[in-house]
């Protein structure tokens, strides 16, 4: 090929498959219960593993005796994770594990392991700074810009408030774990592993390094994953433990998954944050100053000072202080837009309280703050505020605080906002066109249920002018071309760009092969509707099958590479979206129960490959957000250091009756299309706590400081106990 091929997306007017909404390709296998998740696998000679975990929040191991467990019926191997002197820093920390013939035997055997601990002081409090032992807190500095003291002195209106958002857990329905088999030792080792991971490609490298086994001898496979949400990137301790149990048991595969309680305690959570905020401004609703003191915790490592509060709006005069709180609880992990829900909640709440104090409609106050947003986003935010107001019937339904009806059920509306990046990650794809006309696409990505399989297939089918059913796609196997991790909403931009490039390259080879027989140069040919045809002369064509036959016995195999560095995206994928959402809730002031009536989301997006699945992403993000806004909270007991709700009865997720009517406006427009593909997993998950918190405040006329908006928190506020 003499010239660099044109990889750019086909114009929206000519697209036949991209931009339409085919159903997800893995739908039939999932909805018939036949999808085999890694946790479903039963391999030949497989053993079952079980963990012994720490009952203490903070303790030093002084002795460990596994002799009884080793002799227990069915036990094939025992692996001790800690040693004498090891400090365990949270309840649920892994101490030892057993592999046995049955799961029941493994569970019984771990109960026979005797561990003695010297219990050490712990802290699990994060919410009232004054009540926390200073040994567990650390000042993390002050940041200032402009002249906040002057701004507050000259302010016409000053509002203040306390806001808090607790630790929530990922609570993936498929827990963390894997089926793993380690045969041989050292360089002669062979490892095969079936994990539940958001990063099949990097998993092998990470595991190899930790087990000192060449990556070439490790095969990672995963067809389906039962939820990750940011908590499932690395092999983690349990893969190392599982591998060792397998090797010690003579190389038999071991199935080791966390039980629900351990999953809730150690397998990922979103850090808490609490804040005291003062906002200064003018009577017309213009904000001029911000003063915020924050604290929070993501575990024993504390929580570094967030750099995104105030969120989105860079208020010119501000002072921020932060205190890290160390908590003896399972460590934080990335949680669907890390740091953003917390920043959005605190900032949107404070802005809403300022609006109430100034007596100005919050829609107006948010709009007046838009000049503080990034230049590139300002028009979009203004458009979105207007659109969200229209779709939520803001003008009709919104009333100032304390004017929301005389009965016990009060209705209120509130605003939340979001921003996120979402450009594609580095990605490599191979497209193979065979002489029999079949097409195989290979990429070591993973489909989290976001529709990754479907959109890759759409891109390749569009490029080759074939129906989707003719494309065979392979993902989730470390023997395929290396790809990236599904995190940060980077998957769709990465895999769509590499699969477009790969299929454009493969098609160019096919056109080269058939051009002589067609009697025109290759650049005069195009692939459309299952044909290779001469541009402008549709009658002159070859069927796809006839064209591929001309390859003789040699298949075409072409890579498409996207490095995600520099400018090689060329408009195929870019970063940067924003969003505005409005919650409409009813609050019963007698029971404290909050109900979502309607939820409106206006979502900025780039080129959307599958609007149907994109909308599902937004719905899902909002529903998950409603759960965190109304129900979810990791509850810790300071007396014992234990998590009181490591289950799904008292750690409550939203159910089908809790979500109300959700209205999504995807902002699909030609000018957005030109920005290329941008990920959507995270941005719509950001504003919900802010929007619902503000709607509750609007309904009852008082700020409920703490998420989740449970009857307890609502009634405490109404009774002045908050």
């Amino acid at each position, binding site marked *: 090929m003499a010239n660099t091929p044109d990889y750019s997306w086909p114009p929206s007017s000519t697209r036949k498959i991209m931009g339409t909404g085919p159903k997800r390709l893995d739908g039939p296998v999932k909805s018939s219960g036949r999808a085999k998740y890694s946790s479903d696998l039963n391999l030949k000679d497989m053993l079952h593993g079980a963990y012994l975990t720490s009952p203490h929040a903070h303790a030093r191991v002084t002795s460990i005796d596994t002799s009884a467990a080793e002799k227990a019926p069915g036990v094939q191997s025992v692996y001790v994770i800690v040693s004498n002197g090891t400090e365990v820093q949270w309840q649920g920390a892994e101490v030892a594990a057993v592999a046995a013939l049955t799961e029941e035997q493994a569970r019984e055997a771990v109960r026979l392991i005797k561990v003695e601990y010297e219990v050490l002081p712990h802290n699990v409090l994060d919410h009232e700074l004054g009540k926390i032992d200073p040994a567990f807190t650390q000042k993390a500095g002050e940041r200032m810009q402009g002249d906040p003291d002057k701004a507050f002195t000259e302010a016409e209106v000053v509002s203040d408030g306390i806001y808090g958002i607790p630790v929530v857990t990922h609570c993936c329905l498929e827990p963390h774990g894997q089926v793993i088999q380690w045969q041989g030792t050292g360089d002669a080792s062979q490892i095969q592993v079936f994990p539940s991971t958001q990063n099949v490609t990097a998993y092998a490298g990470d595991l190899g390094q930790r087990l000192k086994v060449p990556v070439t001898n490790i095969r990672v496979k995963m067809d*389906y994953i039962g939820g990750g949400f940011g908590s499932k990137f690395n092999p983690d301790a349990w893969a190392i433990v599982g591998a060792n149990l397998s090797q010690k048991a003579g190389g038999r595969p071991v199935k080791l998954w966390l039980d629900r309680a351990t999953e809730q305690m150690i397998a990922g959570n979103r850090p808490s944050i609490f804040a005291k905020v003062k906002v200064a401004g003018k009577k017309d609703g213009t904000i001029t100053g911000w003063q915020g003191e924050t604290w929070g915790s993501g575990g024993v490592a504390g929580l570094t000072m967030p750099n995104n509060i105030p969120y989105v709006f860079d208020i010119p005069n501000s002072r921020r202080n932060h205190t890290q709180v160390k908590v003896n609880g399972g460590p934080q992990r990335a949680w669907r837009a890390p740091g953003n829900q917390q920043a959005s909640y605190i900032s949107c709440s404070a802005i809403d309280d300022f609006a109430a104090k100034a007596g100005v409609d919050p829609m107006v106050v948010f709009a007046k703050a838009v000049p503080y947003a990034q230049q590139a986003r300002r028009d979009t935010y203004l458009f979105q505020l207007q659109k969200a107001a229209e779709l939520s019937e803001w003008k009709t339904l919104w009333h100032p605080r304390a004017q929301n009806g005389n009965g016990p059920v009060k209705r209120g509306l509130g605003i939340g906002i979001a921003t996120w990046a979402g450009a594609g990650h580095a990605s490599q794809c191979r497209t193979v066109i065979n002489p029999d006309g079949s097409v195989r696409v290979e990429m070591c990505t993973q489909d989290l249920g976001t529709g990754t399989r479907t959109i890759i297939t759409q891109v390749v089918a569009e490029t080759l002018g074939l129906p989707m059913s003719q494309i065979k796609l392979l993902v989730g196997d470390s023997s395929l071309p290396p790809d990236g991790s599904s995190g940060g909403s980077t998957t769709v931009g990465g895999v769509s760009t590499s699969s477009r490039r790969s299929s454009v390259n493969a098609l160019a080879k096919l056109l080269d092969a058939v051009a002589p027989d067609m009697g025109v140069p290759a650049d005069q040919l195009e692939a459309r509707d299952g044909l290779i045809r001469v541009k402008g002369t549709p009658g002159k064509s070859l069927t796809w099958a006839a064209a591929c036959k001309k390859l003789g016995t040699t298949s075409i195999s072409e890579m498409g590479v996207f490095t995600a560095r520099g400018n090689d995206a060329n408009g195929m994928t870019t970063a940067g979206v924003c969003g505005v959402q409005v919650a409409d809730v009813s609050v019963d002031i007698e029971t404290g129960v909050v109900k979502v009536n309607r939820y409106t989301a206006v979502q900025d997006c780039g080129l959307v490959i599958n609007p149907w699945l994109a909308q599902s992403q937004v719905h899902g993000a909002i529903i998950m957000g409603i759960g965190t806004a109304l129900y979810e909270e990791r509850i810790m007991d300071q007396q014992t250091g234990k998590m009181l709700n490591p289950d799904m009865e008292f750690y409550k997720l939203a159910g089908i009756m809790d979500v109300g009517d959700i209205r999504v406006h995807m902002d699909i427009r030609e000018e957005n299309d030109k920005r290329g593909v941008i990920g959507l997993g995270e941005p719509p998950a950001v504003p919900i706590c802010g929007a619902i918190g503000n709607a509750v405040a609007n309904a009852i006329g008082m700020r409920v400081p703490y998420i989740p908006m449970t009857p307890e928190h609502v009634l405490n506020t109404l009774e002045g106990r908050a």
Partner: protein
Amino acid sequence: MSSQKDSERTGKPKRGFSRRGFIRGVGIGGGALGTGLLEQEALAAPPPAKVVGPGPVPITLNINGKPVNLKVEPRVTLCDALRNYLDITGAKRVCDRGTCGACTVMMAGKTVYSCTVLAIDAQGKNIETIESIGSPEKLHPVSAAFWNNDGQQCGYCTPGFVMACKGLLEENPHPTLDDLKKGLGGNLCRCGTYMGIKAAVMEAAKTMPAAGGKKNG
């Protein structure tokens, strides 16, 4: 593991008290009492029913129309028997204590959480799992409706939802939106697919043959 160890524990639960340890000792149903903890009641009670275990016992389950023989400890749940012993993995183990519905199967014509039914207690009842109601190539109307309405993302909750939905429609072929919210309130999804699920149930109500075979074909 052995009965000897169990008797060692009599009167003095060592490491707390596990649900499974308790269930294991209790044996079949609620009538058979075997643990030391309940010894006094046991003495006062009528002669106990047949006590089995704690080791593996042979059982026969009637699964998807076929009798299946297996040997499991009495404490093994129906969910674990299906998944670990029979490689029938459509039902998922998620909360493992009757909250989330991911393990839903039909037993004697009713939906049950298979994590809260002992395999040994499931004998003599017809057990129907998602594997018996269609295949990816020939989807059951409820499964098809979930696909058509994008009522799934990661899909881990989906088999449980499909079975719960089927159970709901067999009892109530014409559910209102409120009926379906109540009927499926015992199943949880983490990806947030409820919008698609609501639409799926409404579609399935039209396409699924009614329990009596009367309606809608």
